[in-house]
């Protein structure tokens, strides 16, 4: 165990070197690809109708969209968290499609788009680590693949639009059930204008032992991305679904309001990992929720990097006896960014348990807020929950708040909460520097060390990405202390 970890460490070093020499680490580039179809700026009932029409959807979907649109219009922009007044609703493009491609082979993908994904290392990752992958470019999934082995076992993995065409009933059964449009304004918006996202169905008893991944790329300026993802781990199955995201650097703000609905059936095991590195012009407002049935287990692993404002609270609804969940979350609040992140666990049945570990690092004047909810319903006998929030501040302007919210209605429940706030200490920095490490190196190592227990849980390529970003941020900041 220990020694494999050293190897992981080495592997990360090696990967970083490789990537550097390929010049693959600058995500800020943007491609000169003009959308083939776009609904233009702004949102109206008509735009919603138009999206549905382009997609030639069943009528029930069109009606859900329109219903969601009404909810979206009626709900105010939430004011209980970070300042969202900068979102320019009128000048946003809500749907933009690069091309009418649905490739199953990279060679069928238009060259420029393929080049983009090549630069991001997606096809290579697919070959090496994944059971299947989807690539989404702006609003549309443009590439789907699933290794034959899993297709033969009945696994379905494709972008949600394609799934809606091929498995309409299956999609209808799960669409907007765990996350209904009434949940919040951004969820309503998603349901109204959703496009792309993944649909993953794992049949009973099937254990998919390699992860499946979707890679999202926003290319257009001031474009919204509203993918909707549904994962169903049917009884006794297990699956690991990964997401990665990037967007180029633009001056005008973009909005990412995704929905992830994860259904973990009886005795099933679901895992969801995402490391999001949005450019600093993106408002990242996804709603992610899992329903976990009897004996089911759901693991959330997330890293939030970049973006202007991120508000993300993956939730587990523990609906059946003995359902369990864990939530590991890293937020890196770089200068000029706000990370309002956390987790929710709703205990609705006896013997359910939840564990939430949130780690945040605030750099420069970055602000990180932990906002969480643990609710233990009456009759969730012997439910257990542990929440741990650790924050690390890099300098005097960095800010961190913890806002846990606990509602415990069951007297037999066991609930514990721990929170720590630390600063990078002079003693530790000096010790490392006295052995020749530069101040940047010493502080990145300390930051990465602080995140270490979560880094162990994330896949290699994401660990590399985190590693690289922390180092980059530290070197940008220059002197710390």
């Amino acid at each position, binding site marked *: 165990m220990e020694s494999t970890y050293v190897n992981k*460490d080495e592997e990360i*070093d090696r990967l970083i070197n490789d990537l550097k020499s390929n010049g693959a680490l600058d995500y800020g580039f943007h491609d000169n690809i003009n959308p083939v179809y776009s609904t233009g700026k702004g949102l109206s009932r008509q735009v919603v109708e138009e999206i549905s029409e382009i997609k030639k959807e069943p009528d029930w979907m069109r009606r859900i969209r329109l219903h969601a649109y009404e909810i979206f219009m009626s709900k105010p922009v939430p004011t209980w968290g970070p300042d969202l007044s900068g979102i320019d609703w009128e000048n946003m493009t809500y749907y933009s499609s690069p091309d009418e491609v649905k490739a199953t082979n990279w060679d069928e993908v238009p060259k420029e788009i393929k080049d983009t994904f090549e630069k991001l290392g997606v096809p290579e990752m697919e070959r090496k680590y994944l059971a299947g992958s989807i690539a989404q470019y702006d609003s549309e999934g443009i590439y789907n693949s699933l290794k034959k082995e899993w297709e033969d076992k009945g696994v379905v993995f494709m972008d949600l639009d394609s799934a809606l065409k091929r498995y309409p009933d299956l999609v209808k059964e799960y669409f907007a059930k765990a996350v209904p449009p009434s949940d919040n304004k951004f969820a309503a918006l998603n349901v109204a204008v959703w496009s792309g996202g993944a649909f993953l169905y794992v049949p009973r008893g099937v254990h998919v032992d390699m992860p499946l991944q979707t890679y999202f790329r926003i290319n257009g300026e001031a474009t919204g991305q509203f993918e909707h993802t549904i994962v169903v781990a049917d009884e006794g199955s297990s699956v690991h679904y990964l997401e990665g995201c990037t967007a180029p650097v633009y001056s005008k703000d973009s909005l990412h309001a995704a929905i992830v609905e994860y259904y973990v059936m009886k005795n099933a095991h679901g895992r969801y990992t995402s490391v999001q590195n949005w450019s600093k012009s993106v408002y990242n407002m996804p709603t992610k929720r899992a329903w976990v049935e009897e004996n089911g287990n759901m693991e959330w692993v997330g890293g939030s990097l970049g973006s202007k404002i991120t508000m993300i609270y993956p939730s587990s609804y523990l609906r059946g006896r003995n359902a369990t969940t864990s939530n590991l979350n890293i937020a890196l609040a770089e200068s000029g960014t706000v990370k309002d992140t956390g987790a929710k666990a709703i205990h609705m049945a006896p013997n359910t348990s939840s564990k939430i570990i949130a780690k945040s690092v605030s750099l420069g004047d970055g602000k990180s807020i932990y906002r969480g909810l643990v609710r233990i319903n009456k009759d969730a006998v012997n439910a257990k929950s542990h929440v741990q929030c650790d924050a690390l501040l890099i300098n005097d302007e960095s800010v961190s708040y913890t806002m846990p919210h606990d509602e415990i209605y069951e007297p037999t429940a066991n609930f514990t909460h721990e929170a720590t706030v630390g600063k990078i200490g002079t003693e530790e920095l*000096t010790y*490392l520097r006295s*052995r020749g490490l530069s101040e940047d190196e010493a502080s990145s*190592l300390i930051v990465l060390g602080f995140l270490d227990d979560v880094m162990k849980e994330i896949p290699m390529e994401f660990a590399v990405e985190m590693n690289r970003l922390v180092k980059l941020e530290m070197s940008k900041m220059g002197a710390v202390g």
Partner: protein
Amino acid sequence: MILEIRNLSASVEDKQILKDVNLKIGGGEIHALMGPNGAGKSTLGNVLIGHPDYKITGGQIILDGKDITYATPEERARAGLFLAFQSPVAVEGVRISTFLRIAYSHLHPDEKIVISEFNKRIKEAMKTVGLDESFISRSVNDGFSGGERKRFEILQMLILKPKMIVLDEIDSGLDVDALRMVAEQLKRYFSRDVGYLIITHYQRILKDIEPQFVHVLVNGTIAMNGDKSLSDKIEENGYDWLKEVA
């Protein structure tokens, strides 16, 4: 390599600790620094490595003719200076292998490091200093016992190969075997290019690795310089007589 400390005065939290300290340590020389608790010995070590909490209020530190009085800790380390800390701090989550590799690459920029070979070297050194190989994937000093921390300081010296070495109570808190090991390694590592400043309260280590020079720091000032016999005298009579001199 020559380390020259000239009229060095330093304060911490506005409290003057060191006053006009003078010392000169050359390659191939072993110096011992003794003195009562709170005299300023560790302060001197910290000032030498450029610890930012310690303020130099006068004087100079010269390493091989180069003024490093205001150099950063990393510049000093890269110039060959090394302090084995009296109480090494734990750095959570920073793995020893990574830490040493980065340190080494700065101290020996011309050498190419092959990770697997370098790790092998660390593991061998671990054996030498009596740490289990598994320590290589542990975090720096994290959860180490007092003695393990001291052993790890010696390991770092052996791996990083500095030239001017200050050992702050390397002999405190060690068991008999560890003490013997430390003395042995210090002797083995010693050469004409290496200088030692051994800060200690005890005769024991000085028997194994005999200093040519002994200095006594009292109240932030060098109260007396001498040879090995000075340490014998302190062993017998304590420091009170020197306080009167100082």
